[in-house]
């Protein structure tokens, strides 16, 4: 009995057949549970790693610029890598691109509607341009492979490794910019040292968190793929909507907490940073794991939607002389996101019939 329960972890065919046997309602429930596991696992992992890093004396600047930034994109990364590994490139790429659209359109849009978000020019004039640049680079490379390739366009492994290399450079630059932008003195940092978790607790959180994220991703991928088939929509549509929303839950929960506590400014850095990592880390890692075939849907739909949202964002930044994002800008971003989601299902359900 134990063998059959645990064997699906390694046996893909068994996992797929188990998933196929479930009713649609159960599958949707399974997806919700997997998303919860991903979110909770990422939270625990970050908590453990941060305290472990602080124990080693690593400065908060380095921890904040690297660990914490990467931490909230762990769910996306694990899902996309798992999807690439399991032969679902549409899901892998859709999750990455869909997360950028969800982060900027839905989460940032919602935050601007609920609160006055300051225009942090220090972040937006640095990381902000990397955000726009990395997404544009993804689109340009994708168009390039479409034009030069005789067969299906795909992001080869070299693109994945290129993105991962740029990721390392980006993390270093984030550290440099954070050092420039903060005035925290070493004495202040010492004074702020709170009681850290024990080593045992840190490792427990990291290991259990990692297990939750891996298991969550492992089961989410075939479940989402099965749901796509049952709904009669392509995998990338499910990935770019349902899965992307789910894996963006950490960013959403952080944004809501920031609004509740009266400090929405943290959302700017989070969302902009998450968008960069969705390209360099999520799509980079997925492409490095296995080449990602780019469905045509991306050229007609996902990439244009992503560029519209990011372009709007850049226009708003240059418009906002008073130093805050306006509520109507939030509504615009939300509107683009909702239109994108609705249209995907409307178009594909029509074409399926």
């Amino acid at each position, binding site marked *: 009995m134990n063998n059959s329960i645990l064997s699906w972890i390694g046996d893909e065919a068994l996992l797929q057949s188990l998933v196929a046997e479930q009713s649609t309602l159960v599958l949707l429930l399974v997806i919700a549970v997997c998303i919860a596991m991903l979110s909770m696992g990422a939270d625990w992992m970050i908590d453990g790693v941060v305290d472990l890093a602080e124990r080693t004396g690593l400065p908060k600047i380095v921890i*904040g610029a690297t660990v914490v930034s990467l931490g909230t994109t762990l769910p996306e990364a694990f899902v996309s890598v798992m999807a690439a590994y399991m032969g679902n490139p549409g899901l892998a790429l859709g999750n990455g691109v869909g997360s950028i659209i969800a982060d900027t359109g839905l989460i940032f849009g919602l935050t601007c509607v609920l609160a006055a978000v300051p225009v942090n020019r220090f972040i937006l004039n640095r990381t902000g341009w990397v955000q726009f640049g990395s997404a544009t680079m993804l689109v340009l490379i994708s168009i390039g492979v479409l034009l030069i390739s005789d067969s299906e366009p795909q992001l080869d492994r070299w693109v994945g490794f290129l993105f991962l290399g740029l990721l390392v450079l980006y993390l270093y630059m984030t550290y440099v910019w954070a050092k420039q932008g*903060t005035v925290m003195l070493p004495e202040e940092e010492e004074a702020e040292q709170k009681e850290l978790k024990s080593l045992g607790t840190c490792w427990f959180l990291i290991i259990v968190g990692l297990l939750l994220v891996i298991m969550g991703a492992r089961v989410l991928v075939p479940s989402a793929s099965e749901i796509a088939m049952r709904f009669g929509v392509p995998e990338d549509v499910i990935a770019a909507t349902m899965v992307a929303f789910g894996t963006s839950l*950490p960013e959403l929960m952080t944004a809501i*907490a920031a609004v*509740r506590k009266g400090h929405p400014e*943290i959302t700017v850095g989070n969302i902009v940073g998450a968008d960069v990592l969705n390209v360099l880390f999520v799509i980079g890692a997925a492409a490095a794991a296995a080449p990602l075939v780019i469905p045509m849907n991306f050229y007609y739909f996902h990439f244009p939607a992503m560029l519209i949202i990011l372009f709007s964002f850049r226009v708003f930044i240059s418009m906002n002389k008073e130093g805050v994002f306006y509520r109507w800008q939030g509504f615009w971003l939300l509107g683009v996101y909702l239109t994108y989601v609705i249209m995907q299902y409307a178009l594909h359900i029509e074409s399926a019939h």
Partner: protein
Amino acid sequence: MNILIATDGSEYADHALDFMLRFPFPRDSQMTVLTVVDDIPMLPAEMDALDETQSEALEAANKRLRDEAEELVQREGKRLREDGWPGDTMVRTGKPIDQVLRVAEEIDADLIVLGSHGMSRAKRFLLGSVSDRVLQSAPCSVLIVKKKDGEPTPEAIEPGTNAAYRITLAFDISKASHDALELCASFPLEEGSAIDVVNVMPLITAYRQDVRQHIDSIWMQKKVIMQGELNKAVKSLQWATANVKTELREASNVSDEILIAAEEAGSDLIMVGCKDKGPIRRLLVGSITQRMARYAQCTVWAVRKKTAND
């Protein structure tokens, strides 16, 4: 200051009156003592079913309750008068919370005073309390006087004099906070009193965003601004007492951190401004004041300034 003291004759209400006699309220304040009699509850059908003897017994029981209530308010009124406070006494019949709020409106009270039992967190969470509900609906400030189980009776003081108090003033840059600051600054505090002005900047610990907050330039700017506001607050309070200090803290749970600060300082009183929110905002955001009033071990003064329209 027009003060309404609601009493039910319990040891907690007695403790509240002790607080009133020791705290340096402005000498021109009016104090009204109110108790509410909740008649023995019976449905009209049940009343009709009673025979003459039973009706008379019920009437006698209700009369006894009202007489006891009258005795209570007269006793408490006498204690106030001996301390030099003129004031009225009132006995009303009905639901206690409704009557307290109604009388507060009628006499245009600036402050409602209630005694409160220091329940455990679990009990408070499950049961709520009268003071919770009065705090939510009162048109004015509410003073919730707490008595911890086993707390010794405070030393007796001369009638007409006051005791020294250690006050924790929860402060941010809101209007409600400034109202609380203004009120605190108006008290003629006794020598030996002290005020700790505390601000807690909220940290977002989900996904350890607190680490990013600490390296965010806007967060840093906000801290500098807040320290400046705390220093200004000290200047406003220095005529009330020379012993004023400020504390700028950071925590995920603001209300808990203020309570911790008060406990560490050994405060007798926490003062906090009430930021009145609409029902949806209250549901989404909650109320720091209510959480503090609910879980504080010491007395809490929730300051709510009446507007011109009230």
